[in-house]
């Protein structure tokens, strides 16, 4: 089983990102689960969401404490949240940032992937909503879900122009971390 923790701020779509991973993983014929750790649901407040992907039905309901993967949608969270808490050393953390990696205060030995998802989102969507862009990076860097299934999940969730734009943002992030 692979466990993923999403860190974001209220309004950035971290919960949606977790849900989309669950939908895509199921599309890949795996079992999946996604759920939020709801706090007080205010815009801008730190939020967490979780996803699990497994080859067998998932029964566990507790939160994810030792994730294989961590996605951080907002680099300013590093100042207020232990985003790498419990992250497995053989795991991976993907951070949306334009800061150089040596300026990121992390305690983990896990692989670090950075990308400027905000820039991609602004360029493609015209808004700093990075959840789908980060999914493209997750997909490219981990291959835990297929790009085709992520795209299908996105197309189901976001219709029309918005859907097409999100697919483009995903593609850009996917290629950015794959090369």
């Amino acid at each position, binding site marked *: 089983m692979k466990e993923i923790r999403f860190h974001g701020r209220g309004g950035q779509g971290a919960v949606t990102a977790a849900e989309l991973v669950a939908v895509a993983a199921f599309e890949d014929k795996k079992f999946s689960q996604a759920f939020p750790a709801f706090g007080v649901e205010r815009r801008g407040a730190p939020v967490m969401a979780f996803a699990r992907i497994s080859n067998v039905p*998932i*029964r566990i309901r507790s939160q994810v404490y030792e994730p294989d993967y961590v996605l951080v949608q907002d680099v300013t969270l590093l100042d207020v949240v232990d985003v790498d808490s419990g992250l497995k050393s053989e795991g991976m953390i993907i951070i949306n940032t334009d800061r150089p990696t040596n300026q990121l205060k992390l305690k983990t030995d896990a692989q670090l992937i950075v990308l400027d998802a905000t820039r991609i989102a602004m360029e493609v969507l015209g808004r700093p909503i990075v959840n789908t862009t980060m999914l493209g990076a997750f997909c490219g860097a981990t291959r835990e879900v297929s790009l085709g299934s992520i795209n299908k999940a996105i197309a189901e969730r976001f219709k029309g122009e918005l859907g097409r734009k999100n697919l483009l943002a995903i593609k850009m992030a996917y290629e950015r971390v794959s090369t």
Partner: protein
Amino acid sequence: MMKVVEGSYAVAHAAMCCSPDVVSAYPITPQTHIVEHLSQLVADGELRAEFLTVDSEFSALSVLVGVSAAGGRSYSSTTSQGLALMYEVLYNVSGMRLPIVMTVANRALSAPLNIWNDQQDSIGARDVGWIQLYSENVQEAVDTTVQAYKIAESLEIMTPVMVCMDGFILTHVYEPVELLDKEQVADFLPPYRPTDILDPQNPKTFGAFADPSTYTEFRYLQYEAHLKALSKIENVAKEYAEVFGRDFGGLLDAYQADDAEIIIVTMGSVVGTIKEAIDGLRAEGTKVGLVKIRSYRPFPAQALMKELKNADVIAVIEKDICVGNEAALLTDIKAAFYNSNLRMPIIGFAAGLGGRDITIKDIRKAVEKASAARKGIESQFEFLTLRKEIL
């Protein structure tokens, strides 16, 4: 077709498949998504029902009293403070023998304000005369919704049902669910055909007045209907399994309980985490099992004793606290055993209150304490993850 959807959507879809005539709705976290989805299904023409938005939970259930008494099938959902506000109406519904089905998205009670999951809300309403069925996962909540109507509307039962599902943990989770087929549900669940309804052409009164010469008998009939529901719940679950191919148990379900020395008894979504914990403990040689209570009311005392009779010790884990005594399920189990010849230690734990996460580590701690209780009970009841440092 199996799909990854939100728990609230799956339950709303299940309610739709039962073709209620009226859905009443008042929003309250974490139940709101259920009625929002139903509102959408009505607006999209997928569900032909009257969708009533009301001014409070008191009204949400009160309008369903009218609907049900007039012979309609009705649905609503609520949680926590909302269920508390319905308290007076809950008794009216069961007393008038109206087979309303309502989802309770289990949540903690104020004060202090807390929107997260525990089961204090429905446990607090355990004596209102409703049948209470608890769900382990989203699929069970879906399937139980259909079963609930069949049980409630059986003429020998005519008793309302709460389908309890843990708030957030099940209402907000995305997981694979087999969504129901409306026609298949219609075949399984016949139209509601009550023998007595409010009808201007044939005037009758429901629940108006019973003086001391008859009130006891009204209560006895409710008590008797719950006794009959014990076998009805089992039979409907079996019948459902035959048609839909899924079986989550009738009154209860057991996991690795046959040769278990330590048996955990619980209700709701923590069952999944406990099953994981049990697999780990069994791999280490600890003989642990689980009995999941599906039907808390009526309480399956006989079925429970049959499952637990060979255990050395029983650990009850529950998401409620009866301040002034212990916790509800623990008391019920002890009461059921007192007049039997079963004399193993029974210890209880309140856990997961106000949304505190329950981990495999927590379950192992409860099992350790249960194991120690075989040599003599140190504590009959405690809070499993009490943070003594902040008291």
